[in-house]
């Protein structure tokens, strides 16, 4: 029973914070040291993160490396961490991006360097915490806290129009998540009597499960069968859709799904390279992760009802995002809109509720993190050299930057999902899952259009930027990537190949979560083969202390005043 058996997740999450403290002690003039310490911290975190990833036993319990202590109990909260397959994968992605982001910013960020790295480290902690939280409110706290450092990243180190973008990003997300907060508290209350209810994911889910099954039975039963419902099921029947809507809105904004996506282009365009990388790489996944973990399993019936609608939005997102790209002149904006398109695939895969689709969706989350992250990274290098985002200001730079071009083209192929790269597997699985699902065939067909458009806009951009003759004199003497930049890019390219050719190690860890997700999501589906209970119920460790979560505060006898 070593220290790490219990605390590994804590270490992974709070290590960046510790290093933030170290950085805080440094004088803000010591740029080199600040960078070095941050980098070391991120590397260590990567090491621990990888360790955690490999500790995760695919065949083991759903949630592993759990850690739970009482925290703010009379309010039904406990400090509870744990990883399932999906969370582990996303956690790996997060810690993987960490050091690279630092490397990417070494020359990009020239002022207020100490603050910048502080923000990075804090951001890392919040993201990891959100991924590992097993307590809904804990998740919410991290989910919200995440906004602050990112807001600063965009607003302080961003491009010319950064303030607007930062505030827009913040408020956009806040509105959604605040409504979700109401829903969280509401579902906490309806979930059970004072003694048994808790914000803990497991408790919450298990409390709702039976009612959800009843509700599903009557919803898919004859007309008006739900009138006879009582208790929790009845409440869910009346308010479930509202609560789901609140959750869905919050996460849909984060994803972002059409039509609540307009914060993304601004944020991406204005953010510094680090901001864009993390935003695309990890933050957007919080939305899909939220759907996967909370919104859909907690309210399967409402989700079932809303599924066609959401799926339509997802497909619109895919095609619409791609079309937007064709209309852009600004490279970063194009990449941002391509994210909208890619995340549309993730959502579609989720909503297909087939194991292929869900697996593909999860894998697509990782792919997008890598390919789009790399695209932003590479463009960041270019931007450092030329300080313009317009395609028309480039052209023909393949001549002067061959290595850079090669890297960019490889990533581009990954982003347009050429077989052999990681992108293909995710996209293929998502589409197949969609075709296999109970959604009409049209969804799959339209989504597949993205394959064409994707190639169209990405290659168009590559063409305009890299090929043809050099049209601007400034571009004649651009220097090619230096060693640091190559080192920063290499991991991405390696991963593109590795994840494309041997995805099994990654898929294996995702698979168990997928099965459970599908089982839980299809609780609400008509005529879904009811999965075994051990697939549905969430098994988590109970509080070590005897105190039950959410002990009701019993009122004492009124004051003896008059006798």
């Amino acid at each position, binding site marked *: 029973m070593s220290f790490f058996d219990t605390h590994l997740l804590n270490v992974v999450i709070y290590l960046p914070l510790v290093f933030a403290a170290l950085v805080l002690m440094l004088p803000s003039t010591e740029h080199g040291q600040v960078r070095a310490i941050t980098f070391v911290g991120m590397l260590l975190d990567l090491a621990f993160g990888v360790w955690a990833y490999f500790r995760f036993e695919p065949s083991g319990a759903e949630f592993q490396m759990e850690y739970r202590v009482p*925290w*703010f*109990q*009379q*309010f039904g909260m406990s400090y509870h961490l744990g990883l399932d397959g999906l969370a582990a994968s996303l956690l790996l992605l997060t810690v993987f991006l960490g050091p690279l982001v630092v490397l990417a910013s070494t020359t990009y960020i020239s002022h*207020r360097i100490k*603050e910048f790295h502080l923000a990075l480290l804090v951001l890392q902690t919040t993201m990891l915490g959100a991924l590992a939280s097993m307590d809904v*409110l804990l998740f*919410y*706290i*991290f989910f*919200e*806290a995440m*906004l*602050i450092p990112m*807001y*600063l990243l965009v*607003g*302080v180190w961003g491009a010319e129009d*950064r*303030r607007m973008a*930062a*505030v827009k990003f*913040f*408020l956009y997300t*806040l*509105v959604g998540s*605040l*409504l979700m*907060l*109401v829903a969280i*508290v*509401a579902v*906490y*209350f*309806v*979930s*059970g*009597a*004072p003694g048994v*209810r808790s914000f803990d994911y497991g408790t919450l889910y298990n409390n709702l499960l039976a009612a959800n099954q009843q509700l599903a039975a009557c919803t898919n039963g004859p007309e008006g069968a739900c009138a006879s419902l009582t208790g929790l099921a009845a*409440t869910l029947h009346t*308010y479930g859709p*509202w609560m789901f809507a609140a959750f869905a809105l919050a996460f849909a904004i984060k994803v972002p799904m059409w039509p609540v996506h307009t914060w993304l282009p601004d944020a991406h365009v204005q953010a510094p390279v680090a901001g864009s990388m993390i935003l695309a790489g990890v933050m957007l996944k919080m939305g899909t992760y939220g759907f996967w973990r909370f919104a859909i399993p907690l309210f399967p019936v409402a989700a079932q009802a809303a599924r066609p609608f959401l799926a339509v939005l997802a497909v619109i997102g895919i095609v619409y995002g791609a079309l937007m790209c064709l209309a852009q002149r600004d490279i970063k904006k194009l990449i941002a809109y391509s994210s909208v398109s890619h995340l549309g695939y993730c959502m579609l895969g989720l909503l297909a509720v087939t194991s292929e689709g869900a697996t593909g969706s999860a894998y697509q989350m990782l792919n997008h993190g890598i390919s789009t992250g790399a695209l932003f990274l590479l463009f960041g290098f270019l931007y450092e050299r030329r300080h313009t985002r317009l395609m028309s200001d480039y052209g023909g730079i393949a001549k002067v930057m061959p290595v850079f071009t090669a890297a960019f083209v490889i990533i581009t192929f990954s982003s347009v999902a050429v077989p052999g790269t990681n992108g293909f597997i995710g996209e293929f699985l998502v589409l197949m899952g969609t075709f296999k699902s109970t959604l009409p065939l049209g969804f799959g067909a339209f989504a597949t259009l993205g394959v064409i458009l994707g190639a169209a806009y990405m290659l168009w951009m590559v063409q305009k930027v890299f090929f043809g003759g050099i049209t601007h004199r400034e571009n004649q003497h651009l220097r090619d990537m230096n060693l640091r930049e190559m080192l920063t890019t290499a991991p991405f390219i390696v991963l593109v190949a590795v994840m494309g050719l041997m995805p099994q190690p990654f898929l294996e860890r995702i698979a168990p979560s997928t099965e459970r997700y599908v089982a839980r999501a299809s609780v609400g589906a008509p005529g879904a083969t009811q999965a075994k209970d051990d697939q549905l119920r969430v098994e988590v460790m109970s509080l070590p202390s005897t105190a039950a979560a959410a002990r*009701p*505060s*019993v*009122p*004492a006898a*009124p*004051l003896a*005043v*008059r006798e």
Partner: protein
Amino acid sequence: MNLPNLTLADFLPLLPAIIMVVAASVLLLSEVFLSATASRGYQAVLTVVAAAASGAVAVGLMFEPPQEVFLGFGVLDPFSSFLTLVVSVGLGLAALSAVGFLRKRGAERGEFYALMLFASAGMSLLAMSTEFITIFVNIEILSIATYALTAYLRRGTRPSEAGFKYFILGAFSSAILLYGTALLYGATGTTKLNDMVIPLQQALHGNPALVYVGAVLIAAGFAFKVAAVPFHMWTPDVYEGAPTPVTALMSAGVKAAAFASLVRVFLTVGKGMDPKLPLMLFATLALLTMVAGNLMAIPQRNVKRMLAYSSIAHAGYLLLGVAALFVAAPGESFRVLSASSLSGGTPLDVARSDALRGILYYLLAYTFSAAGAFAMVSALERREDEEKGTAWDLERFAGLAQRRPGYAFAMAAFMLSLGGIPPTVGFMSKLLIFQAAIDVGLVGLTIVAVLSSAAGAYYYLRVVVYMFMHPVPEGAQPLERNWGTEAALVISTVAVVLLGILPGHVTDWLAQAGTLFGQ
């Protein structure tokens, strides 16, 4: 005519108030013997010490069993003790931020602190009083002191104007409150809350008109003190005109005490009337206050005034908690003002104690955040511009992150806390209030609350934007540092963050305070 024999046990509960009063008197007396030029640094120290002492005593009292004091004119219970704690905190922070403020203006005089102490004594007593005349007297004690404090600075037109408005409207409102009291007295024949319950229930069958109108008038009186829309109009002007530390004290202490008394009175009076009335009353007030407060703060460039509006908005959230106290039975439908049948089988008394807990925690949270924010304002304002009213312009905050990273961080913490963003205490306290409201089914109102607080985030963020994302304005003279201000900042920052992350112990007390409420 036999005098009641009072034992020392009757005076023990008053200890915090007594400490403050004694300290005040010491200050006044010592001031007499000081030459105009003598250093007066000790005064702030003494005030802070008194505040600390009374706070400590209050904490100690929190574990005393609930008891009547002075034949039921007052009551000692964790609720009142916790409020005393809140008041002492507010007093301490205000006094700390006053040090530099007064020195800058060469207005250090003992009566300033003495008045602060008197006001705080009044607040802490108000939290305890359970008899209408006592309540009235205490309200007047704290009001009169604050009237004087508001007009304390004699330079310029603003302080006197603020004082005048505050005074006229304050007197007006207390007259109204008093009239309400009289009506209730007429209906019940007593002014003690505890004795009122039964006559009220009888009156309900007799002629409830007196009771109802009286209740409305009393509510109006309190609504003025807590600055609830539409009784809020004085707030921005007075907060702007008053010396910033005084503003801090008002926004923290006065509001807290008034809320405490409001809750006490209405939990009792409410028993004597159809619960629908107070629910409607406070739900409406909450709705108006939250929405209007936030909306009106949005266009403000004057930070001090913006904070005034924000304090109105916060009163709104607190009123939401108050409204949650008066939900008797959740209705069926989903309306904004009335409760919907969401409640998960929580017994109403439990829900009620949760609501009380939420209110108390919110008061503490708000005290720290607001006092800290005002301390920062007082550190940044330039008195040359006071007449123009630009002394508190957002520009003063531009580039603060480069000039004083520590200050900027602290202010950011306060702003986020006021905006209710985790991981700050502001989030936790809002959470408790919302939880209470949702628990009893005030979902519609809660949704309004969160939406308005999202709107609120905008103007809080704007301060952050100025501090972090705007360049330092050229010709910005260096900020002189001051131990008092910095102490205030450090204390409140630490509190804001710690209470946000580890609310455990405080909420344990609150569980007590909320439940062991003398009802």
